[in-house]
């Protein structure tokens, strides 16, 4: 029972952190960035288009270690992606104003990972 306060404290801290992590996502800014970069031409939020939906990516990576880094790699490095016909091509590198603004990129990665069914 002595451990109970410590467990509770840990739970409270975890909740506060997870809430603050959610609170740090600027959803509108992330959506504006997807529009600016034409992301929605190939990805739906919940609908698969030529690329997987944001939801599918979120469900594949959510909770895994390095999930955000994985999404960031897609957004920033021109990583090879597999197309429906089995061929590959480089994923578009997301552009920000000012250029290579990692804060905007991370916000977008967090937004993608936050999509719920």
């Amino acid at each position, binding site marked *: 029972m002595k451990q109970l306060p410590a467990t509770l404290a840990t739970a409270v801290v975890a909740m506060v952190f997870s809430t603050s992590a959610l609170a740090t996502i600027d959803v509108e800014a992330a959506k*504006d960035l997807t529009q600016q970069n034409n992301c929605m031409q190939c990805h739906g939020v919940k609908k698969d288009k030529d690329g997987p939906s944001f939801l599918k990516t979120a469900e594949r990576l959510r909770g895994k270690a390095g999930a955000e880094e994985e999404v960031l790699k897609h957004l920033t490095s021109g990583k090879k992606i597999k197309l429906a016909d089995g*061929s590959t091509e480089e994923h578009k590198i997301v552009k920000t104003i000012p250029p290579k603004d990692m804060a905007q990129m991370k916000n977008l990665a967090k937004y993608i990972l936050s999509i719920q069914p």
Partner: protein
Amino acid sequence: MANQNSDKPGWWALLRRPSAKYSLLGIMVAGFFGGILFWGGFNTGMEATNTMTFCISCHEMRDNVYKEYQYTIHYSNRTGVRATCSDCHVPKDWTHKIIRKVQASYEIWGKITGKIDTPEKFEANRMAMAEREWARMKASDSIECRNCHNFDAMSQELQKKIPYKKHMEAKAAGQTCIDCHQGIAHKLPKGFKKPGTEEEE
């Protein structure tokens, strides 16, 4: 009536009176060269308003859209081809250019009244200004884009597969550049959703 009593004829009478001093050929030659000078001066003046230096001489353009444009591919790219303000916003052919210039003179009124003289005012009007420009481009089949870009000149081998597929779909559907490429050289207005990308949310 005053002219009749005066020794000097009026301006209109002077213009209508046949020349007693100069030959018809002399007048024609002088008119010809005078016309060239006038026309050259007029066009040079108009072209001066097509330069980027002119466009960014107002802080409204320099501190907002010009700043954003400097980060885009139409300003700086691998091949060193630059599309300046007028390349995208003023038609090349003379008639449409004159019409656009006359329309643009209304912007002077905006300048005088300070309609967008702060970043906040600019943002507040960004959607209206962008929509007006997109409508103009749509109506002209994105004529300025097409000075350089053409569906038929797109190489299936050199263009990435998905963009090529989208371009060919757009061509078949009779779409024009600005239907998808809004905000290609400037920030999109906040909250703007491109047609066909509104999602179930």
